[in-house]
């Protein structure tokens, strides 16, 4: 039970970070050129959709394929939202990287929960909870690092 609470907290933290960085970019959307907008949409939508789809695979471990479809659509929507700040080419880049990121996140979530898919050794079946903890913390750390680098690049 506390495991689910922890994962839910990380999911809301990821959503909160995404929302805050979207607000910052919306406020400054007239200041930067379209090349920076494209790269911003690529990095932000990729990492946010990766972490959120991985966490949602951890939280709801049944309904595998339904969740996969849902998170891929969600990643595409996140990419479109981030890309539509600037121009259509950044919308395309954000859409592509959102879908690729959420597919990767689904893949790593399913593999960590069921190690026999990648034919990992049998010792992993006793370490699934520990692996879920490590991977969710690492993914959230990656989100924080990436968003802070993107935010810092507004000033360079």
């Amino acid at each position: 039970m506390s495991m689910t609470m922890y994962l839910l907290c990380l999911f809301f933290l990821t959503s909160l970070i995404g929302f805050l960085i979207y607000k910052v970019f919306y406020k400054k959307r007239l200041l930067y050129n379209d090349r920076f907008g494209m790269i911003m949409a690529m990095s932000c939508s990729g990492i946010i959709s990766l972490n959120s789809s991985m966490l949602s695979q951890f939280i709801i471990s049944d309904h595998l394929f339904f969740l996969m479809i849902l998170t891929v659509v969600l990643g595409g929507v996140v990419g479109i939202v981030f890309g539509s700040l600037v121009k259509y080419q950044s919308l395309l880049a954000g859409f592509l990287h959102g879908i690729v990121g959420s597919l990767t996140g689904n893949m790593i979530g399913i593999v960590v929960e069921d190690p026999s898919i990648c034919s990992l050794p049998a010792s992993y079946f006793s370490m699934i909870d520990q692996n879920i903890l490590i991977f969710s913390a690492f993914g959230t750390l990656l989100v924080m690092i990436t968003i802070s680098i993107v935010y810092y690049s507004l000033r360079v």
Partner: protein
Amino acid sequence: MIASYLGYLFYGNLLILTLTFMYLFHIRKLIGFQLGMNISTMAGGFTAIVTGVILIYQFPLKFVIVTIVTTLIGMIVGGLFGSLFDYQTLLTGYGNGLMMGIMSPMIGAAAKNNYVFLTFLEGIFIVSLFLLVLSSKRT
């Protein structure tokens, strides 16, 4: 038997990568940002894939640590190649190296120590570095 040579393969890849980096460092003023973006994407992504597969072949019992290390290596290599040109190419190489580095240990674990696959990936890596040097020379 072959597994004892995987470390040398990793070291050789690192050596080739360093030579390419030094070559690009000399002519970095001649390369525009469009080519710089593609260079950082290619270098970070392929290095992350080859490194992840080699590391998971060498340490098949440590999937978690191998994933974290590969992600860090992909991020650092993509960022280094991108930092030759611009801050935005750094961001591109960083993001792509991260994505490929998270994926690659799973590919290596699913390939089940198949050495034909590793040879194929190594060939792709060397051809991509060759194309990278060629395209930077032609501009």
